[in-house]
């Protein structure tokens, strides 16, 4: 009951946030954004033709009217049709969103899971060679550019010079085997890159927790290291871990897959967004920006509810 009340209250307070984000992005992207009038007209257009096209594009309406129009689109999830392909924006998103999720999810989950496990091991052996090796490899993972990792992994796993096990590009998925076939290399690349950052961050959190008095108490009462780490320490460290994971979700889903999608030729949201930015396809951009804002609000709410689940000291009031 408390949780439900809290969720509703947060949803209401999330509205100004959505308004703020959409207002700023609308102003930058649409109001000051590209003017497509002359792209659509031929050479030497008459004044009537210009007015006609501007009317069709809705440029002749006032800022307030256009912004309200945008909010209406957001509320009804009806963003009109893509400028470039003429396809319905909502159907583009419905088609590409699952692809992006399927591409990103395994790497995201495994990258965080391995990050936490390695961080626990490193923190427990703090100062020993195990810790030093894990941290050394993490710094390596962090230092190498994502692009280099992608290209290197493509060479290693997908080229005739390497193992030649997986396709270099494409997304031709009809079965689970196909899925594994196409998703493995991008997943390995994103794990390799995110693992460094994750492990370092989580290790710092866990090292701090390891120094707490209750850990010493648990040791003094004979707790096994596994129990100590995966129960006492992990549950206490979950708040910063949850925060990091939750806050990276909107970014990862919408934009994080951009590099992967363009380098592996996968038709996901990232690719669509990237193309829309290049071609000034406003209906798509408006949809992506608005949805990201909404997703952030929901993530924040889930985040706070998870805090409560993990830590009994936190009240949702």
């Amino acid at each position: 009951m408390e949780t439900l009340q809290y969720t509703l209250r947060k949803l209401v307070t999330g509205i100004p946030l959505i308004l703020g984000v959409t207002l700023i992005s609308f102003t930058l992207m649409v109001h000051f954004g590209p003017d497509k009038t002359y792209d659509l007209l031929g050479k030497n257009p008459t004044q009537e033709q210009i007015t006609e096209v501007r009317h069709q594009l809705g440029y002749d309406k006032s800022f307030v009217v256009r912004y309200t129009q945008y909010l209406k689109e957001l509320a009804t999830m009806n963003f009109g049709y893509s400028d470039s392909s003429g396809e319905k924006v909502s159907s583009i998103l419905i088609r590409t969103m699952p692809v992006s999720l399927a591409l990103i999810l395994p790497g995201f989950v495994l990258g965080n899971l391995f990050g936490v496990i390695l961080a626990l091991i490193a923190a427990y052996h703090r100062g020993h060679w195990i810790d030093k090796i894990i941290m050394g490899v993490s710094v390596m993972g962090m230092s190498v550019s994502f692009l280099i990792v992608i290209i290197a992994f493509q060479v290693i796993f997908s080229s005739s010079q390497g193992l030649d096990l997986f396709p270099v590009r494409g997304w031709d998925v009809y079965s689970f085997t196909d899925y594994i076939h196409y998703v493995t290399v991008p997943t390995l690349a994103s794990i390799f890159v995110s693992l460094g950052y994750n492990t370092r961050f989580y290790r710092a959190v866990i090292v701090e927790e390891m120094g707490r008095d209750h850990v010493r108490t648990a040791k003094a009462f004979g707790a096994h290291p596994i129990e100590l780490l995966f129960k006492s320490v992990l549950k206490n460290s979950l708040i910063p871990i949850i925060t990091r994971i939750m806050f990276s979700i909107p970014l990862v889903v919408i934009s994080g897959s951009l590099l992967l999608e363009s380098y592996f030729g996968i038709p996901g949201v990232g690719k669509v967004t990237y193309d829309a930015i290049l071609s000034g396809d406003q209906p798509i951009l408006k949809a992506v920006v608005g949805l990201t804002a909404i997703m952030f609000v929901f993530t924040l709410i889930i985040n706070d509810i998870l805090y409560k689940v993990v830590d009994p000291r936190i009240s949702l009031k």
Partner: protein
Amino acid sequence: MSIHMSSKKPLLSVRDLVVEFNTERGLVRAIDGISFDVMPGETMGLVGESGCGKSVTSLAILGLIPSPPGRITAGSIQLNGRELVGLPESEYRKIRGSEISMIFQEPMTALNPVFSIASQMTDVLSRHQKIRGKQAKNRAIEMLELVGIPSPDKRINEYPHQLSGGMRQRVMIAMALSCNPKLLLADEPTTALDVTIQAQVMEQIVKLQHELGTAVVLVTHDLGVVAESCQRALVMYAGRIVEQSPIIPLFKNPQHPYSAGLMASIPRIRADKIAELPTIPGTVPDLLHLPKGCRFAERCQFSDDRCHQEQPKNQTKDNREVACFHPCGEAS
């Protein structure tokens, strides 16, 4: 009540224990060759200033010296004749919380904030006593009742932050005693509590110690607590034991000048008002640069050349041991 009662075997026997820490500034000997016995069922005080090695001593007994940087470099710790120094971790874990338990100074932070009292107590019980579920919970409730927590069947489901400091320390005591340990190490158990609560908690420890026959090593700098609850006390200074003695002679007639200084600096109601409370001049020596001779010589009013050159050996007399060339009460 003697130090070496020949008829009884000591429960815990520490011999020539040396604990060293690797620090950035060099090797520090936090404990330098201490020896003492704890008899079954007795309460022994371990007294000294901060940094004298008393907490390190209790951690060493439990095998919990943080390593690195610390380690036991020499000596032995025997529990009922069984050597604990060098015991494999898996064996040591079976002893911690079951044969030797420990209560810590900070009840506010010593319990895990995100697990309920029930969960923390039943974990210990299932680990050492192999009882689980309802049975373990009932045993935990029984223990909470024993340490004087009202409506323990409700309290047990609460989290540490829902309890007061005194209640949390009672929970600690209940947890520590739940597996019937033979030895309880209490590291400043009342220091963080209000004075009125301090008395209650101390009373509880003493009462349970009598009922259960647990031996207690009470680590504290509070001489009042030692005087009230211990039969015997060790006085530590800069990593060494300077005096060990039954409690009444120690307070009436301290032999080591350091003990004498400690006793004199206890605030009390005196017949004649004094302008200033007596203090011990100077500060504890830096463990990195220890003097060659007696460690207390710099601050001692009786010290002479010999004290600065030579380390005094323990002298035993009337069940008392003192490491001093010029014990108080003797012509020097």
